[in-house]
């Protein structure tokens, strides 16, 4: 299995920390990798306002002086979020292996925009359209469906 760039990912959900409500996607790249005091400094507050037309409940927060507007999206039914970490190699031969394990899971994600309110037009929300499309593409077609959608070439 471990050939040319293949990765082994261990997706275990049992007994992993559930980070739902704590996963944030910020409109910036923070050049730091590691733990920090997020809950002491990053304080999202619901604005009580619901996005025009699409009814997304909005939150606001500040990071490095900038006003961020965000909304929490539940992950689609049947999907889960995973926080992966590289497996610590057990022996020499494992050292170069690309093996990952689940450190935590989540069922929603809060994404933030700088300068504009979240809406259904945001790329991030639109990316989820793929799941519906993929589902349609991959589900078997019954003879009845074929018949009802038949068209002349």
């Amino acid at each position, binding site marked *: 299995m471990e050939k040319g760039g293949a990765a082994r990912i261990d997706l275990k959900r049992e007994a992993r920390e559930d980070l739902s409500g704590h996963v944030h996607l910020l409109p910036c790249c923070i050049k730091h990798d590691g733990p920090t005091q997020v809950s002491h400094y990053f304080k999202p507050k619901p604005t009580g306002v619901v996005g025009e037309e699409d009814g997304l409940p909005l939150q606001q927060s500040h990071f490095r002086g900038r006003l961020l507007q965000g909304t929490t999206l539940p992950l689609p039914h049947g999907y889960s979020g995973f926080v992966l970490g590289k497996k610590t190699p057990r022996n020499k031969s494992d050292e170069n292996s690309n093996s990952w394990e689940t450190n935590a899971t989540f069922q929603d994600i809060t994404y933030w925009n*700088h300068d504009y309110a979240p809406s259904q037009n945001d790329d991030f929300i639109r990316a989820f359209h793929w799941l519906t499309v993929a589902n349609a593409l991959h589900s078997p077609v019954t003879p009845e469906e074929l018949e009802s959608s038949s068209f002349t070439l």
Partner: protein
Amino acid sequence: MGSEAMVSEWASEPCIMGIDEAGRGPVLGPMVYGCLYCPRSYQKTLSSLSFADSKTLKEEKREELFETLKANDSIGWAVDVIDPKELSAKMLKKSKINLNEISHDSAMGLVDRVLKMGVLLTEVYIDTVGDPGKYEMKLSKKFPSIKFVVAKKADSLYPVVSGASIVAKVTRDRAIREWVLDETADNIDRNFGSGYPGDPTTKSWLEHHKHSIFGFPTLVRFSWGTCSSYFKDGAEVLWESDLDEEGGSNSNNNGKRQLKLRNVGFTTSKRRSEEIESSGKGRSRFFQARKLEHLTNF
């Protein structure tokens, strides 16, 4: 906040008003605009109340004068407290709002509020922000029925502005004293100093409360140049909205929203905006429009 509760009988007489600010320069805490108004017929008495420019008074004297003017039935007052978060956010927007504009809006907001309370304002005295001539034109255009006197050092020239400066300064000092920090981290002390970038107490507070990821508590005005010297050893943060600007000059860029670092979080930080933009290349428009790319390496 203000004396709104009692709209006095003199409100329908021609009234004068002074407007002044406190906390424009400091790197932390709110900026406060204050105003004080009274009937024109009261002007002489007002001059005898020994309101001087608030900066020349000791804190206790200012507090005392504020209590005196609050108790005075012939005087009305109001304040606009602008949160440091709001100052930072406005000044760091993609289309930046500068401090002069924020100041002008606050002053005009006060005029508007007092007029709406039913006070017949005929003359308004105000300390200038930016060019006095242009500022006066802006004010007169918005409120054609009022005569505006815009001057440098108006707070020491006109007692009604001196009074306003006391209202503003006392409100800012109290706001700082009673400031409720958003942050819940331990060891944030309240010895902020005056907030002026040169104040040694403020300098030392900033030095001790900088945070490598978050920068500072939100009491600090991140948009102040002073802050950047404290960020040097902190984690670098690259904003999508800044990349947008950078990419705006690219000929192949046909929309601001194209340059996003997103891709559900797997994009590495070192990529330049052009590379990010081209990531959907070769894929159907459906994927390009949603910034979805194939991940071949994990």
